[in-house]
């Protein structure tokens, strides 16, 4: 599994840290709780930079190497924050056979970043995701929470993206 290293600077607040430490205290005595702790930590920060992993390691006594190992193993855990405009293109089989790759390429060319990256200014992020289960609407992509399905041809994404880039 390929992981891109964190590029953005850490800007965690003291409220976030308090929340994190309280959450860890609540969970750490449950068997096998490191996964739920990481999931909740990602809910608080939006991603899991080394700074956050270090706090979790200190509070739970689980070594950094173990935590880093878990974070980089699971694709849900991310080392980069999501962009303000987060785009994900479904690469499930149904979407793939209906041309999802062309849609991904078109979007990538359009906003100038590769899949898996967040743009330097933090405005855009682009992901190629596993099947999101909306196969009936294939091919499908998401911008933030909005679902765009039954995309007939790659060019159709241009107008959809305009709605976000111009706002």
């Amino acid at each position, binding site marked *: 599994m390929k992981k891109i290293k964190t590029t953005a600077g850490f800007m965690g607040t003291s409220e976030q840290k308090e929340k994190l430490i309280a959450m860890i205290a609540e969970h750490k005595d449950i068997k096998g709780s490191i*996964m739920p702790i*990481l999931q909740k930590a990602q809910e608080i920060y939006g991603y899991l930079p080394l700074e956050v992993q270090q706090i979790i390691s200190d509070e739970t006594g689980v070594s950094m190497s173990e935590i880093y190992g878990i974070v980089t*193993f699971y*694709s849900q*855990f991310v080392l980069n924050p999501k962009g303000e405009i987060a785009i994900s293109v479904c690469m499930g*089989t149904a979407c793939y056979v209906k041309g999802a790759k062309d849609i991904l390429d078109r979007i990538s060319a359009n906003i100038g970043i590769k899949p898996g990256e967040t743009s330097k200014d933090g405005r855009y992020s682009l992901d190629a995701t*596993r*099947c999101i*289960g909306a196969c009936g609407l294939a091919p499908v992509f998401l911008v933030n929470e909005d679902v765009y399905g039954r995309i007939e041809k790659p060019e159709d994404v241009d107008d959809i993206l305009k709605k976000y880039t111009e706002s």
Partner: protein
Amino acid sequence: MIKLTLNGAWINMKNINELTALRDKFKNSIAIRTGDTAAANGEKHVLVCGGTGCHSSGCNAILKKLKESLKTHGLEDKIKVVVTGCHGLCALGPLIITHPDEIFYELVEPDDIEEIVTKHLIGGEPVLRKVYHEAIVDGKLISFHETDFFKYQHKISLKNCGIIDPECIEEYIARDGYQALAKALTTMTPLEVIDMVKASGIRGRGGAGFLTGRKWAYAYLTDSDKKYVVCNADEGDPGAFMDRSILEGDPHAVIEAMAIAGYAIKADEGFVYVRAEYPIAVNRFEIALKQARDFGLLGTDIFGTGFNFDINIRLGAGAFVCGEETALLTSIEGHRGEPRPRPPFPAIKGLFGKPTILNNVETFACIPPVILNGPEWLSKLGTENSTGTKVFALGGKIKNIGLVEVPMGTTLRTVAEQVGGGIPNGKAFKAAQTGGPSGGCIPAELFDIPIDFDNLLSIGSMMGSGGMIIMDEDNCMVDIARYFLDFTVEESCGKCTPCRIGTQRMMEILENITEGRGEVGDLEKLEELGEHIKASSLCGLGMTAPNPILSTIKYFRHEYETHINDKKCASGVCKALFQYVINEKCIGCTICKRACPTDAICGEVKKPHFIMQEKCVKCGVCHDKCKFSAINIG
């Protein structure tokens, strides 16, 4: 001790009579939705599908509009609106069904609601233009149960999906819910439960098809102070969504079955490991767990029998390998989800080192009806060694994309042509892919084989979790094989060498072939590597990873050979291996020239056009735009 909650339901039921009384109280309101017009007594229900498919296509807007409209007409107390789980026809969502007259509406938009309310619900005349198009034959309305999509289906795992409100435990109880748990706890010994599951012949629906009863028996026979029941809801196969639909549409069935399993193997704790990507399923399951606890159907001293059982939810974090049982257990324990060698099998030494049974969501959903109706009820359906039904997630180049449940032994042709409605745009069937990245491609010549666990294995595919992707003549089989291998290469956890490195080497050979660098002998290398990886990998992921390649080489060898020898991709998918050419049918209409994003087409009006290959990016726009079939893939 009977207590009353705000909505008038009992909680903390201590015996089966209380459960039965509750069932009888709500029975009529559900009977309306199963074709019992007598039960309706003037009452009307409108069911809005709230499955993920319909959610994505906008069912919430429909629901809001429907409630507003009913309120405006003063009908909010007379017509009951119910949000249900998935009906199966995801491609035609948002869906609405009215009862008791059973009118099935497709592709409903918010603007259609007012008409449906005034003309149909008030005026009694269905809005034909929005009725499911298959349910209108020669201008006449037929019951949607008689349409091809529904009539070949037999619902066991999905029996409540699309009928009950999954967030209302009373509706599940009204459909004989928790009766099986009550029967097992109060009238059967754990061994009798296991024997009944064994006699039903049910095999694991998650992929490998191991006999469920036998698995339970192993765990029962292992002595331990603590045992676990685990439900595998980490549905990772791209294109499969049956587990999600069951959790979303009928979560209590899984809870009830897990409790029955707990009683059978003497476990008091369960875990459900569900994909974090399924927020609706997780939410509905959490609601169901709370209700079951409130009603005393989970917790301590269930039905006053002294049996204790409760369930925890653990969210997956997006690793395909965690669908493999030992990797899933390692993940629940809080580690990287890497598989461990078997034996010892989880039934002997599983979660936290204790005996554990692991079953898939769909398998669990079959258990309560088996306990309630006896083993023959299931074993009379299906084939000799694969009893009951199987849910398939139909996808790809097929009209009725969605979820279907058919008896084992139904042919692929029936599923694809009748239930699935065939291929759109009059294209020809080429293959069906079953079992996701672990399965294989089945060519159209073998479409008359009855689908069951053993038949699929014998033709080089497998049941897997039930994803079924239909492919037509436009799909390149080499590219499909590459796609699935790309998936397993990325998802390989890296623990064992054959899977980690072997699949990578296969991938490189396949990439060479699809990019025009294939060499004679590549196919033999792929076959040899594939057999070695199958034989020597640690877990199911590696053992099955070569299947998509081996099966496509077996059935579509000529396609690979054209890629390697002639450096051509006849389907026009592998971009390095074809070019678009304009033929003599071109009349010079200039549509393609104007559509081309890279200005690669030249030519004057009313004169044949020409594609400059060095500029062409093979996007295919010209090919799709041409109205005269003047652009060939060559």
